[in-house]
């Protein structure tokens, strides 16, 4: 045996033999326990609105339910909602998939610019779209106005995933189909379209949930949906049984959408879209007529979704002059928005962390249950969350009613998944072996987690923070109902001014909201262009 071996042995012999503690809990069990507990608390919190609606429905009793649900008003709202969905969704799909194909898979002139313009409407809050159109054409109202605005405001939700899927698609599949004797159109229908199924379903679900949850857009053009009806009901009679029952029906609609999407999705995964293919995809060469048609589609879409809002906004800003920027509410509103969004995003990202870590490191039955809980909770419209929180605060926690804590809790419930998705992706990119290596180098589990995984997922956390920040910055419904008296954010300030038909004074609020949203929109655009995706 070598000299050094003896030396090592000597050093080791000098070590106190019983100094190392044997503990019952295995590696990072303690950490898993605490993370699990925190994740469960957050999940239960976000399921609170659902529980509230269920409890209220049970408490109301059968007769009262029949009386409140089976009445002409509910039928009318249902018909409105159905019509809106049935007309808007196919149009959104057509526009979203069409522009995605044009910008990703054809040689449309200026397609990079059109791709940006297809995403840009997302930077404009839905109710600002409404404002732009209603102040340009005051007579606009009803179903067709709702359809027009929904398609304009929400088709980017279909464009983004479809464009990303088109980018990731393996061109070899199309080559094979062509070599088997399929014409280009047949290749598109039989090979490309089926692979877009998941993207289209996901985008449609998002649009559907927005249609159910949106308040400002539809209120401004006087189109009644469940959300606007609940809002009105709430303002007139406070938290009455009628509002709760309407919310119950709305929640059912949301759950139906979720179920429908997952049923349609089925077990389909299709070919692994994988880490992208080395070979560039071929682009369809449009003839002069095709190019002209493509250009006009993109041009009309951009004119309606960007041109009209920007033109109207510019008109009002010009008309208002310097005066509108001197509004005593404007700068405090910006400050309050930044404050609320900053604090809300921080809390939300922190709350998402345990669940995100668990879902990557300890996937299992309980963790999946928590996750589906979060998923369902996130589908609940802001109005339902607000209604539940107001009622619960009034009944059981009066001092919390209309406080900062309540509104921050509402933001947490509504926007948790945005932080979760981002964090989960970040943590998944930090291999567990790094935590192990850090522990073998003498780091206790929590510190190992901090120095490796959390450090590495910091960019993802920042992206999640930005997403939540901007969502809160543009949030209207819950903020109107829950914010402490005297709070005025950019969105609620804008809303108050447009309600007084002071369109010029509202314009700076809208402009600042759009400017705040631009970075997020750019981020989403960049993400969808990165072919790795997922």
């Amino acid at each position: 045996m070598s000299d050094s071996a003896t030396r090592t042995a000597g050093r080791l012999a000098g070590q106190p033999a019983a100094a190392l503690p044997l503990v019952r809990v295995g590696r990072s069990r303690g950490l898993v326990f605490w993370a699990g507990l925190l994740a469960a608390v957050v999940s239960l919190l976000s399921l609170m609105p659902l529980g509230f609606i269920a409890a209220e429905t049970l408490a109301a009793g059968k007769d009262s339910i029949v009386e409140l649900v089976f009445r002409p008003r509910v039928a009318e709202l249902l018909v409105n909602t159905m019509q809106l969905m049935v007309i808007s969704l196919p149009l959104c799909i057509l526009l979203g998939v069409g522009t995605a194909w044009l910008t990703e898979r054809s040689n449309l002139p200026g397609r990079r610019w059109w791709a940006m313009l297809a995403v840009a409407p997302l930077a404009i809050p839905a109710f600002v779209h409404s404002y732009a159109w209603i102040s340009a054409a005051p007579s606009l109202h009803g179903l067709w106005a709702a359809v027009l605005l929904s398609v304009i405001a929400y088709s980017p939700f279909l464009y983004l995933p479809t464009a990303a899927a088109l980018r990731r698609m393996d061109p070899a599949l199309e080559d094979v189909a062509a070599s088997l004797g399929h014409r280009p159109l047949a290749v598109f229908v039989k090979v490309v379209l089926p692979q877009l199924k998941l993207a289209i379903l996901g985008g449609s679900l998002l649009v559907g949930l927005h249609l159910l949850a949106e308040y400002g857009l539809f209120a401004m053009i006087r189109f009644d949906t469940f959300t606007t009806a609940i809002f009105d009901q709430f303002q007139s009679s406070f938290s009455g049984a009628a509002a709760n029952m309407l919310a119950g029906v709305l929640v059912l609609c949301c759950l139906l959408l979720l179920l429908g999407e997952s049923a349609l999705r089925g077990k389909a995964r299709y070919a692994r879209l994988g880490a992208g293919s080395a070979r560039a995809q071929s682009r369809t060469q449009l003839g002069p007529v095709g190019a002209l048609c493509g250009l006009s589609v993109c041009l009309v879409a951009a004119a309606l979704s960007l041109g009209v809002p920007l033109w109207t906004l510019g008109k009002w800003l010009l008309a208002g002059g310097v005066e509108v920027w001197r509004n005593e509410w404007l700068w405090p509103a910006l400050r309050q928005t930044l404050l609320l969004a900053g604090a809300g995003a921080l809390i939300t990202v922190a709350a998402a962390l345990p669940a995100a870590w668990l879902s990557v490191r300890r996937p299992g039955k309980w963790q999946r249950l928590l996750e589906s809980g979060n998923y369902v909770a996130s589908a609940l419209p802001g109005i339902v969350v607000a209604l539940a929180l107001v009622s619960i605060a009034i009944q059981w926690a009066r001092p919390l009613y209309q406080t900062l804590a309540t509104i921050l809790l509402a933001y947490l419930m509504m926007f948790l998944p945005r932080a979760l998705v981002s964090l989960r992706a970040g943590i998944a990119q930090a291999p567990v072996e790094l935590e192990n290596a850090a522990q073998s180098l003498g780091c206790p589990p929590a510190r190992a987690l901090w120095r490796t995984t959390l450090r590495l997922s910091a960019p993802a956390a920042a992206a999640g923070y930005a997403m939540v920040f901007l969502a809160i910055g543009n949030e209207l419904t819950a903020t109107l109902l829950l914010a402490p008296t005297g709070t005025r954010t950019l969105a609620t300030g804008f809303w108050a001014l447009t309600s007084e038909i002071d369109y010029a004074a509202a314009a700076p609020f809208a402009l600042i909201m759009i400017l705040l949203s631009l970075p997020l929109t750019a981020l989403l655009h960049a993400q969808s262009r990165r072919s790795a995706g997922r």
Partner: protein
Amino acid sequence: MTCLHIQSLSKSWGAVRAVDAVDLELAAGGRAAIVGPSGSGKTTLLRMIAGFETPDSGSIRLDGTTLAEGGKAVPAHLRRIGYVPQDGALFPHLSVADNIGFGLSGERRERQRRIDELLAMVSLEPAMLKRWPHELSGGQQQRVALARAMAQQPRLMLLDEPFSALDTGLRASLRKAVAEVLREAGIASILVTHDQAEALSFATQLAVMRQGRLVQAGSPEQLYRHPVDADTALFLGEAVLLPATVRQGKASCRLGELSLHQRREDGPTSIMLRPDQLRLSAAGDGHPASGLVLDSDFGGQDCLITIQLPDSPAGQHPGVTLQVRSPSLTAPRVGSRVAVEVCGSAHALAG
């Protein structure tokens, strides 16, 4: 003197016994290799020694300290056991210097001195210190991972297939370098691998695992020449397995009467010969173990010759087909007759 002492260690994942009552001992400064097909439980065993998993039962002792016993375990960060995983697991957000210094505390100058020392130990240029992990080649990454693990002066070094992602030439040289570094520092080590050649050349002590159980342990030479069963024999290298009958300490098989390495009771058995024990020569007519060359597979320096031996003349042994390596230059042609000679003694397999 024993350094590591593992006794009836078990771990289950649900109904699957990943590690089943394993006993293992490793001398101070020794190098052990655990080999086995994937899913044999070797990595789970290593992770229990490292402290990443807690055994269900059994004990692990290192230099007299108990690391795991009766379902309790010392957390990984208190064990001072070095660990080099398959891909190195370098921290991507830290430079090479900070990776190596991760486990080091104390004054900055002293820390830097240690880092320089460790870098030299694994034969890397000082200029590497400022590099980022993604700027290193696979071999360099593994060297840095080894230096990082050496920083805390581990009592035992665990290597979890650290060479398997590298290409063949680099693999052998890095394996030699790692063995050298560990020998110089006098650190006992355990290498987990599914590559038998790697295990045979690295280890002073070899353990074969299969389905969670430790099938056989001993010196590489001992296991190669005298495997406990056919699976182990084939896992550790090419082997010729033949049915035989033992009579008065000799094995009678299609290749003739062979002396046996161990004592066996009379009766039927199965024997193993390594290809390096077989020699081919041009067959005289009367040679009892001669056959026809069916196929010759050119493989560069040697050829793999397939020989068909008919039933033995006296009829007591059925015919067999053998595969024997022969130097390319003197390899017999397809269709020629060759005689097969055996050098050394045969090894009778259990079961």
